[in-house]
Each structure stands twice: as structure tokens, then as C-alpha cells.
């Protein structure tokens, strides 16, 4: 029994990580229609900036408030990079979707290489509060605190994103802008600002995922973001592009599936099952679990 609980809770932790990565991706993908391969870069920037801040920023550190400050710095850095990328690289290419995707591909190559050039290819130990290394006993299962932290963070991010889409007009503007950008401007709306905002939020979510992923993995390395990206993509697609809630469902499904199959089945079967789930969902319901609509 305790094994099942352990697997379920750690599976949820994994799902939370997937969701954190996927949420920003889904937002940018679903709203701005950009299949953002540079998302892994934003992740990396967030992780490295947090790592750097904990060591160098006055007031920041691996513990307590200092850690919060370091993470805040990391998120800010990720957001900033995302905004810059949108302004400089994506914006001039609007309505040329394929080219936008390709620019993000180029960016993911160049950006990760840049991280590597700056900080080396080796994994660096990630600063983190001591308690994240510990475990909490829940019904006989030793659940890692890092996973619990991820679950809480993911729930908060989910709530915040839903509120953003629900209570502001931006969701609407962006969805309309994806369909017909010209017409949105013809209604007197500066659609460019809205797109930049979406990128900023996507970047912030990615950077947060990077920082918390660092806590989870205990290290930070240049390629970390890209390796998470493939599962994040799967989550986004299963959940339905642009649906934040769908991503949440899909992340939970993928995380639990992987965890249980890996325990009860043979190694590697977990990944194959996830891929199988993706294919099955798409063949039965090409728009994903929650379809295209991005309101929730």
C-alpha cells in the first residue's frame, strides 16, 4: 500500500514538473501559435540565473528568504530573456508561423550552446534549502519534499494562469490575434503588446520550472531544459494546445502512467506507454483532451 502511495505522490511530483514546463509552452503555443522550441532555453536561463544569484547576489542564498530571492531573480531573468526574444526575433516575423518556429529552433541551438560556453557542460550542484532534500512520511511512504514543493508550485501556477485568462482581456485578444492579427489592430488594439505579454508569462513559467527543476534534480546543466521539453510537448499536445487546464490533466496522466509502469512493468516501458497514450489520444481526438479553446 505504501508503495502505491509513494508512487502516486512521486508521480504527482513528476507531473507537477511536467506541468510547470508545459504550462508556459502551452500558453505560447496555444495563444501566440508559436511552437516554441526555445522554451528549453528559458528554462535553462531561469535555472542558471537562480544558481548564479544564490552564489553572487547580495541577500540571496540557498536557504530561507535568500532562496526565494534567488528564485525571484531567476524568474525575472527568464522573463526578461523571453521578452527580448519576442521583441527582437519573433515580432518581426509575425504571420510567418513556420519561420517563427524555425527561429526558436535556431535559438534553442545557439542559446544552449551559449550557456555551455559560459558555464561549461558539466552539471553544477544547485543551491537549495536543506529541507528540500529531506522526506516527509505520509501514510508510511517517504515522500521527497522536493516533489511536494513542485506540487504546490504547480497548483499555484495553474491557479494564477487560469485567473489571468479568466479575468483579463488578454486571453481574448491573443486568441483573436492568432486568427487574424490585422483585424485585431483594426479594432483598435495593440496586439503586439499582448503577444509580448504572453511570451513574458511563458518565459516566467519556464524560468520557474527551471529553478524548481534545479531543486528537484539537485543540479543544473545546459541541456536540462531540452531533455524535459520532449515530455512537455507530449503533455501539451495530449492536453490540447493552449488549454492550461488540459495540460494539467495530461501532466498528471503522463506522470502517473510513467511512474506506475516503470515500477510494475519493465524499464523503458513507461516512456513507450506515454508515447502510445499520445498517439491514441491524437488519433481518437486530434484536438487533444481539452481542445483548442484557451479560456480554461
Amino acid at each position, binding site marked *: 500500500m505504501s508503495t502505491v502511495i509513494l508512487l502516486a505522490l512521486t508521480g504527482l511530483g513528476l507531473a507537477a514538473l511536467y506541468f510547470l514546463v508545459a504550462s508556459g509552452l502551452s500558453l505560447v503555443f496555444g495563444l501566440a501559435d508559436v511552437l516554441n522550441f526555445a522554451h528549453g532555453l528559458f528554462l535553462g536561463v531561469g535555472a542558471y540565473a537562480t544558481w548564479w544569484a544564490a552564489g553572487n547576489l547580495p541577500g540571496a542564498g540557498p536557504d530561507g528568504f535568500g532562496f526565494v530571492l534567488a528564485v525571484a531573480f531567476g524568474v525575472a531573468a527568464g522573463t526578461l530573456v523571453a521578452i527580448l526574444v519576442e521583441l527582437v526575433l519573433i515580432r518581426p516575423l509575425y504571420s510567418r508561423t513556420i519561420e517563427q518556429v524555425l527561429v526558436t529552433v535556431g535559438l534553442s541551438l*545557439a542559446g544552449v550552446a551559449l550557456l555551455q*560556453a559560459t558555464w561549461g557542460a558539466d552539471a553544477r550542484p544547485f543551491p537549495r534549502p536543506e529541507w528540500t532534500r529531506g522526506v516527509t512520511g505520509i501514510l508510511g511512504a517517504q515522500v521527497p519534499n522536493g516533489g511536494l514543493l513542485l506540487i504546490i508550485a504547480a497548483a499555484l501556477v495553474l491557479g494564477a494562469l487560469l485567473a489571468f485568462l479568466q479575468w483579463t482581456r488578454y486571453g481574448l485578444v491573443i486568441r483573436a490575434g492568432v486568427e487574424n492579427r490585422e483585424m485585431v489592430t483594426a479594432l483598435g488594439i495593440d496586439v503586439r503588446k499582448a503577444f509580448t505579454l504572453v511570451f513574458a508569462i511563458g518565459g516566467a513559467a519556464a524560468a520557474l520550472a527551471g529553478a524548481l527543476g534545479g531543486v528537484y534534480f539537485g543540479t543544473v546543466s545546459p541541456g536540462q531544459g531540452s531533455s524535459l521539453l520532449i515530455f512537455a510537448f507530449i503533455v501539451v499536445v495530449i492536453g490540447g494546445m493552449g488549454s492550461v487546464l488540459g495540460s494539467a490533466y495530461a501532466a498528471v496522466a503522463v506522470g502517473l502512467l510513467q511512474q506506475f509502469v516503470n515500477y510494475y512493468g519493465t524499464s523503458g516501458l513507461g516512456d513507450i506507454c506515454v508515447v502510445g497514450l499520445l498517439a491514441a489520444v491524437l488519433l481518437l481526438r486530434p484536438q487533444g483532451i481539452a481542445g483548442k479553446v484557451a479560456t480554461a
Partner: protein
Amino acid sequence: MTEVKSPEVPAPPAAVPAELDPRPGRWHRVRPYLPLVALLVAAILPYSTLQLPGIFEGPVNSPGTLQLLAICLIFGGLAAGYDLLFGRTGMLSFGHALYFAAGVYGTDILVTKAGLPLWQAALLTITGGTILAALLGAVALRTAGIAFAMVTLAFAQVGAILVARDFGGLTGGEEGLPLDVSGLPEALVGVTNTVNLYWLALAYLALVVFVVHRVSGSPTGRVLAGLRDDERRIGVLGLDPYRYKLVAFTLAGGLAAAGGVVYCLIVGGASPHITSSELTLSLLVMVVLGGPGTRWGPVLGGVLYMYLDHRLTAFGTSEAVDSLPAVLSRPLSQPLFVLGTIFILAVYFFPGGLAGLASRLTLLRRSLRLLSRTP
């Protein structure tokens, strides 16, 4: 009726297939022969001892240069085959690497593990790769747009996992599987015979370009071009979109598998790099870099991409880079940084790809002439 389309993959920046609309021009008499001339030049290139310092390490006829060129040619052909899907039919597949990898691993395993003679292995592999493409395509084509891209990606991912798992020691896992050359024809083994591999690669490229060209110019190619624009309309005209897409998918898959066979010989083995989704992404990059839907664009893009990919490692360690201050030399010594940057710049400065460059230049010339006439 205005129906919202499911999240569609935008059709690539379309170019009218040149094959369908032969516009008469000054060139039109010479033009059909240009590819032949290019082929001929490429074929006799290995007889030249031309030194191109900075471009190639050694003279053109040195094995190192020929090997590099052979790899470039293979990817030129691969990109041209992929363009049949992407540029000409508007299908965005993220799993094309699978069929290429099937070609590489198929040949390698049949030769090395099963001990088949090369020609049998090649034949079996190409047939197998084509059938694989037909089967998986038949399933994947039940979806469209991004969903299609993701289903193909998923299939390719399973392929990658299987290769990495190394079932029965068949694939060699992450270490790859060197090709056992003992049963191979003499002429394909050894550094001195690199030129034969080069010719093989050239033949492959020529074959792909010819096939793609013929198919695009055929009645079926016309339907494919129509599919790219409006699938619904094709159905209403009385043609089954599914069938045509499947044919394109299968054909492209078969061509990729054939490329895999040659690549396996050139590199002398298989390694899991080629099963990664990054390879498909690079194919996409190559096609867009060159110009989707054009005859020479994808070839050019593929050749250039592979050339940069190989040569940038040398660039990164060159004196010129090392002598720069650290802020510059560190990133510049990362080949992927340079490649990514070049790629981003290319998207900006050559919209429509390298193939679009010519027509843009013509336009520029014309407007300059106009300017000079109207003071």
C-alpha cells in the same frame, strides 16, 4: 461556409512548383541541361586537386574532403525527399528521421548481424523502410496539422527508444553499431575508396532530385500542390486526399530509407544520433534554409547545413577564434552556437530560402534600373 480549421500547420511559404508552370525566359533553352552540367561537374570533381584553404582541410580529391562532401550530398538528397512532404504537399512530419534511421540500422544489422550481402541488405532495407512508412503513414494520416506532426514524432520517438534499449544487442544502444565490412565489396572499403562512396552519394542525390522533380511535375504532383492549399476542395473535386498524402508519405519514407543505406556505408556504421527528433528538425531547417517547394533549395540547404555542421567544429578551434577575447571566442568555439546564429540570421535575411535569393536579386536589379531611368 466558414468552418474553423483545427489548429493547422501553416502551409510553408509556398512557391509555385516550377515543374508545373514552366515560364519561358531567356534561360529556358539552356535550363533543362543545367542540372546535367552540374551533375557532370560534381562527378568529375574528385579528379581535381584544387586547394580551397579555409573551405576544405585538404585538396578536393583528398579522402577527408570527399567524405565531407559525400555526407553533404546525402543530406541534400534527404532534404529534397523531405521537401516532397513539407514543401510540396504541406505535411509537417516531425518523424522523418525514423525512415532514415530505419535505412541506416536496417542495412547495418542485416550486414553485420545477419551477414547478408550488401545488395540484399540494401534491397530488403529499402523495401522494409517503404513498407514501414506506408503502415505508419496510414495511421498518422488519420490526423492533420499539428496533431499529424505530433503523431509522427511519437512514432519516431518509439523508434529512438527501441534503438536505445538495444534489444538483443541488435542496435548497440547508445554506442551504436559499427558496420562489419568484411563482406562488403572491396571498392567500398578503406580510405582510398572514399571517392566511390562520394559517387554513390552523388548518385543518390541525383536520384532523389530526379524523382522529386518528376513526381512534382506529374499529375499527382499537381494534386499534391493542391492539397497544400486546400484539402477540402481536393475532395470535392473527386480526389481522395488521404490516398495522395499516403503516396507522398510512403515515397518520401522510401527515399529516406535509401539515403540511410548509403549513409551507413559512408559513415561505416550506425549511431543513435540519427534517430533523434533533432534530425527531423534539422531536415526542416535545411528545407527552409534552402527554400521549400523549390527544386534546388532543399538540396542547397541540406548540403550547406551539413557542411556547416561539420566544418564549424574546425572553425571553433581555429587560431582566428582563439585569439579573440574570451567573451567572443568562448561562444564562437561552440559549433552549435554559430550554427544556430547563422540559422536565425538566414531566416531573417533570406526569407523564402536561398532559392528565393535569385529572384530577389532580379527584383532588386529591375528596381535599380527603374530608379536610374526615372530621375
